[in-house]
């Protein structure tokens, strides 16, 4: 599936998909759900919640 096709399915711009792939943007829960739905898989199979990053106080 191309970035353009996925963007069209989930209703976002291609740039958003590019930034998601590069890990430069954290999607909203709705977008994460829509993307996993587009691939017919669970959210946790597409996105990984990195606990170490969240626990780092420099990220707040």
């Amino acid at each position, binding site marked *: 599936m191309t970035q353009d096709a996925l963007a069209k399915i989930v209703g976002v*711009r*291609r740039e958003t998909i590019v930034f998601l792939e590069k890990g430069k*943007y*954290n999607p909203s829960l709705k*977008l994460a759900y829509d993307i996993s739905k587009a691939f017919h898989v669970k959210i946790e199979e597409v996105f990984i919640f990195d606990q170490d990053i969240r626990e780092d106080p420099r990220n707040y």
Partner: protein
Amino acid sequence: MKKSIFIIILSVVVVLTIAVWFFKTYSFEDVQDLLLYPIILIILTWGLFIGISRIRSQRKGQPPEDEFSRKVMRKASSISFYVSIYAWLILSYIDDHVQFETHSVIGLGILVMVIIFVGFWTIFRFWGIRDE
């Protein structure tokens, strides 16, 4: 890839041609004029970039703006507002020491605010927003 390089080269040639034409046509009396026109050109280019990217998205059947672009706009707005307060503070300090006309100070302040906003928007748009 080749198409994007061609567009960049063409844009640089157009901007340089306009710059050369500007410098030959107008005689700049002070530094303020020298700074003002490139800044206006940057702001216009930024506006053009946003407009073109929105049209391109619409043509592809994608929304002109989405959650990422809205978040970039929101974050750039909030941080540039915060930074602009300090910019006005510096400007008022300079105004105490160098005599400017009131409308020049206000104009310069607004221009600085726009530059700060465009700067932050560019950073978030091209570097992304992590951990939010």
